[in-house]
């Protein structure tokens, strides 16, 4: 856990709810800040920030390679692998790179020392800057098994950051989301005003509770109608941090990859007050 209580994760149970909208605009409202895009399968925060001075780093994982001369055909590795990334047929061991989750277990268990590891590039991390905001983006290559190693790289040095950090999480509540929120001091859950939205909100609400993270909800796409997500928050005594209206103007700015808080005073004020509310909840 970072010592400064400055790390805020933004998550939701499904894609398209507004995680990136909220993360990007809060980072801008905060002035000097860090925005980290952990949605490595489809990172899009950089489309808004258009960061400059990008430094890129390749992310590698370890994949087993077999020395056929040393392999005795004992199949300890084949039986061990939970992902079935190894098979033994016609007196030779076959490794399926795309299925391997890089746990290294097969290499440890091989008594013949027939297995070693080689590096495989699965994606990259870009670190750049957009005005006062440091923009970090994780990019997973298509078809790779897991984005977790990329997220680990993105978050490995965050305790050194002194500014507010906003982690734009992947959608859902799977491993990559857990990896993204585990060092967060506070979680913002973004929810839509539909029954489906409530279901997705409940999923991430259960997840953050499991991780004992304090959290609050931002209600996005609000209309002048009943809001099932709002009712869910009231019933479960969850703090509602703010409401974002379902407006053409905001939608237009966002679809043109403009940052609303930079382009319009109105939205600048809206996200500043949302940020104040968040800081109050975090205890900053």
């Amino acid at each position, binding site marked *: 856990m970072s010592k400064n209580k400055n790390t805020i994760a933004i998550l939701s149970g499904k894609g398209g709810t507004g995680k990136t909208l909220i993360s990007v605009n809060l980072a801008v409202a905060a002035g000097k800040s860090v925005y980290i895009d952990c949605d490595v399968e489809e990172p899009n925060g950089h489309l808004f920030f258009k960061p400059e001075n990008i430094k890129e780093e390749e992310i590698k994982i370890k994949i087993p390679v077999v020395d056929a001369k040393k392999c005795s055909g004992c199949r300890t590795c084949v039986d061990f692998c939970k*992902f*079935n*990334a190894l098979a033994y*047929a*016609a007196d030779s061991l076959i490794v*399926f790179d795309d299925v391997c989750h890089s746990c290294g277990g097969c290499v440890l268990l091989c008594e013949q020392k027939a297995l070693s590891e080689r590096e495989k590039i699965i994606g990259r991390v870009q670190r750049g800057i957009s005005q006062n905001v440091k923009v970090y983006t994780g990019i997973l290559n298509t078809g790779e098994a897991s984005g977790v190693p990329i997220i680990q790289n993105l978050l490995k040095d965050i305790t050194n950051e002194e500014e507010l950090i906003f982690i734009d999480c992947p959608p859902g509540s799977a491993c990559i989301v857990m990896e993204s929120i585990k060092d967060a001091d506070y979680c913002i859950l973004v929810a839509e005003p539909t029954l489906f939205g409530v279901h997705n909100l409940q999923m991430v609400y259960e997840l953050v509770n499991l991780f004992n993270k304090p959290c609050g909800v931002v209600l996005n796409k609000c209309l002048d109608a009943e809001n099932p997500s709002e009712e869910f928050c009231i019933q479960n005594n969850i703090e509602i941090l703010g409401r974002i209206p379902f407006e053409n103007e905001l939608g237009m700015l966002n679809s043109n990859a403009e940052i609303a808080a930079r382009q319009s005073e109105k939205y600048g004020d809206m996200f500043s007050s949302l940020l104040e509310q968040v800081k109050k909840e975090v205890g900053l």
Partner: protein
Amino acid sequence: MIIAIPTEDKSLDKKVYPSFGRAPFFLLYNTDTEESQYLDNSAVLSQGGAGIRAAQVIADNRATVLITPRCGENAEKVLTGAQVLIYKAIDASIKENIDAFSNEKLTLLTDIHPGFHGNEQK
């Protein structure tokens, strides 16, 4: 010769199971003795790589022919390595498929699909 066929039930009157890696059972049919043996498919509940695991089991049980409607590329790699020939199942019972194979009416499966790789349909 041993023929392997994915199946949902322990009966020759049932149709061939539509997928390979996640079939509940595999029939191992011995054409010399006309005996049937059914194996539980341990790959059904795999988190991933079900086709690879299933292909390994087929190869380990010394089948030399697999009759299946579909097969993914990873399973195909294991089966080909183990010199198991893959034939395309016809839309009929398992018994009729065995007969069709014996009468040389089945063709080799050529449309190997790229697999679901972590996106298995649940």
